[in-house]
């Protein structure tokens, strides 16, 4: 399979998954707010933090209120991770591989894009809820159509990897933000607001019902929620589940036997997966939830980068080719950003959310 084609299928799936997660975050927050006592300040700031693009938001919007955040996350065409931007990019990617994906997939991506592009940005609350649900459904439908209409060959596996890496990253981010927002507030521990917050977190990852159902542990406690979202073996949005599936797809692409590695991408994902398989949530909490998730996100970025280097990167650019060199230089600039470990601690919290590696890679594509 052409590297460019594999890359486009990968990003097509990542963007659709990203759009779905943005819709989830908004949807759950809108619901949560309705349940909060009016004296509690509306919780829009955490949503901005989840995106990792706080700087962009502050520069263009300032205050994190409902209108601003909704506009920012759903309809802002200048913000590369908004719903509309995700769909635009997903569609461009789909269009560039139309001859490889199924007609059904293309038609659906096209319709999905039109759904978002044709939605006005001054929806009433009821319309907005309806719209966000449609977005979530459209993403599920996309995954279903892809699963049912194209061969589960290399291209399909690259798509899976894109979707699951994105999902793992977003689950980690929202857990990180919510954990920080919900837990340090000693005053609220054990109050109804606290429990509502955790329920909202579960719902934003579609995990609420599955969490309640699993085994005998029905009660909602912070440690149990984190355990479920990070380490559950069966829930398809848990980080461990995603890592297991990514590793599997990667090995099916390369043909390397499981348990071995032949390239850096396989080594990184194998290491991440096995770590998740043998960790306990107590260890995670003892070592610091934020530090753990932060490192996890770095590892996910590393896997992404190594997949790119191993399978998708094009030949070094020859001096005559001008447009190619643009993307080439971007690659170099990604690699030359200092790893977060070199950044002073106090700056760390801010920088953690600067989503820099995936953020730049989007530019790399277009």
């Amino acid at each position, binding site marked *: 399979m052409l590297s460019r084609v*594999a890359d486009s299928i990968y990003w097509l799936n990542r963007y659709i998954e990203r759009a779905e997660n943005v819709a989830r975050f908004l949807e759950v927050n809108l619901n949560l707010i309705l349940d909060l006592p009016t004296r509690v300040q509306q919780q829009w700031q955490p949503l901005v933090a989840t995106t990792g693009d706080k700087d962009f938001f502050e520069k263009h919007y300032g205050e994190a209120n409902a209108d601003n955040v909704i506009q920012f996350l759903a309809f802002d065409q200048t913000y590369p991770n908004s719903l509309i931007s995700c769909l635009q990019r997903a569609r461009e990617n789909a269009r560039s591989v139309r001859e490889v994906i199924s007609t059904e997939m293309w038609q659906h991506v096209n319709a999905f894009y039109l759904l978002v592009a044709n939605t006005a940005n001054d929806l009433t609350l009821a319309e907005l809820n309806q719209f966000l649900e449609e977005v979530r459904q459209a993403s599920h439908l996309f995954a279903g159509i892809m699963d049912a209409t194209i061969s589960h060959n290399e291209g399909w596996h690259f798509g899976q990897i894109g979707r699951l890496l994105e999902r793992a990253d977003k689950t980690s981010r929202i857990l990180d933000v919510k954990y920080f927002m919900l837990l340090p507030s000693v005053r609220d521990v054990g109050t109804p607001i606290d429990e509502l917050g955790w329920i909202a977190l579960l719902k934003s990852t579609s995990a609420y019902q599955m969490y309640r159902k699993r085994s005998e542990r029905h009660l909602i406690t912070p440690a149990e929620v984190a355990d479920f979202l990070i380490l559950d073996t069966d829930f398809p949005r848990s980080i461990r589940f995603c890592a297991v599936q990514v590793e599997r797809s990667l090995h099916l692409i390369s043909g390397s036997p499981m348990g071995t590695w032949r390239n850096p991408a396989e080594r990184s994902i194998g290491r991440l997966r096995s770590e998740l398989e043998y960790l306990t949530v107590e260890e995670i909490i003892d070592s610091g939830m934020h530090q753990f998730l932060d490192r996890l996100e770095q590892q996910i970025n590393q896997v992404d980068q190594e997949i790119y280097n191993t399978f998708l990167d094009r030949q070094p650019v020859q001096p005559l080719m001008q447009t190619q060199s643009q993307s080439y230089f971007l690659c170099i600039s990604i690699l030359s950003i200092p790893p977060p470990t070199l950044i002073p601690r106090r700056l760390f919290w801010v920088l953690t959310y600067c989503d820099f590696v995936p953020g730049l890679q989007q530019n790399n594509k277009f």
Partner: protein
Amino acid sequence: MRFDTYDPDQFYDELFKSPQQPRSQGQVLVDKIHGLPDGELLQRQRAAQEALCKLGATFNVYGESDGTEKIFPFDVIPRVISAQDWHYLERGLKQRIHALNLFIDDVYHQQKILKDKIIPEELIYSATGYLPPCQGLNPAKGVWCHITGTDLVRDLDGEWYVLEDNLRCPSGISYVLENRQVMKSTFPQIFREIPIQPVDEYPSHLLATLMHLAPDNISHPTVVVLTPGIYNSAYFEHSYLAQQMGIELVEGRDLVVADGYLQMQTTKGLQQVDVIYRRLDDDFMDPTTFRSDSTLGIPGLMEVYRAGRVAIANAPGTGIADDKVIYAYVPKMIQYYLGEDPILANVPTYLCWEEQQLQHVLANLEQLVVKAANESGGYGMLIGSQSTAAERQEFAQRIQANPRNYIAQPTLCLSRVPTILEDEFYGCHVDLRPYILYGQDIYIHPGGLTRVALKKGSLVVNSSQGGGSKDTWVLCQEENA
């Protein structure tokens, strides 16, 4: 809807001899349409449009800011060509392509036709389509123009003329295939009763033509379609053809010359490419040989090509025969190379580089159609009868500044076909672009793209200028005829 009040007027109408008198090849079609319940035809027209929308048969229009795709409008009333007419066209096209190929080969080798003063040498050297680096090249199996989309028109008397040869990267075949698919589901009954030649074999013929070009020692050649990318006006077609043939659609950035071969970058490393169906202009193909500012091409491609390690369709250099000044000499080429009279006529053409003809053109701009020698898609032309005095004056200056670059032709009264405009039948002007493949031998695809000018009275059928398309029905030869 009925044709009772439809009037072919003074034009040559493809379906009607005179009011209410269908031509023999159109009789069954007209009867069938008359047999439809009220409103049914309009409803089917809408259904067909929707079906094409869904198939996503789109094109891009350059210069429009949103850069998005447009649907190519489609009209359900087909254009019917009798078996007899088709037989004549086939013979004429085969002859023409045969001669054109000999001409291109001659230009890049001995140049006998120039030495014998049939075509002035200066016309070749001043043509933008002439590529000196191709001098002496021997394309695989001796064929230069593998895929051609000749534009044909009919005048008032129904006579066929060749308007343009389109030997570089003619587009439109994807619409032919999709239009037919939609028509078959729109009028299944009619297809059962009229013997219409099928069109679905095109991708197989194209693939066979391309595979034929591969070096003989390669049993399973890797064939690819090379596209400039998703912003090209014909991107849909590139992707469609790759899909139909089941081969890779590549961009220049996917390809690289390594170890003396053309290779594509895959997830498993480099893979050798043996044949390219390129939908990229000559100029852009190799920045080390042609335009150095091209970012779409592959540096070093021409070296590999010269060494015979990759085949390119159409061969680089073919564009020389697409020059509209050279076009005027095609009848002479046919006589020169084949010793035959041309079967298909050219549209009478004035060459502005000849002083006398230039004066005639300048004096008669209002009656003529002036075209730049190297533009296509309806760009760079002046239709005298529909222009303003200011436009004519501006064009006259352009011609005088560079007479070599302009030709003029009389305004043709293109034939018409009934078309649904504002829920009524209206005679709209059409042309025809059949597709010709030259591999082991010359194959004329039975049908072609009928383009229709969808504005009342308009003569411009180009998709970029508001044209649409129709299905083209070539009837089968009667068994006992």
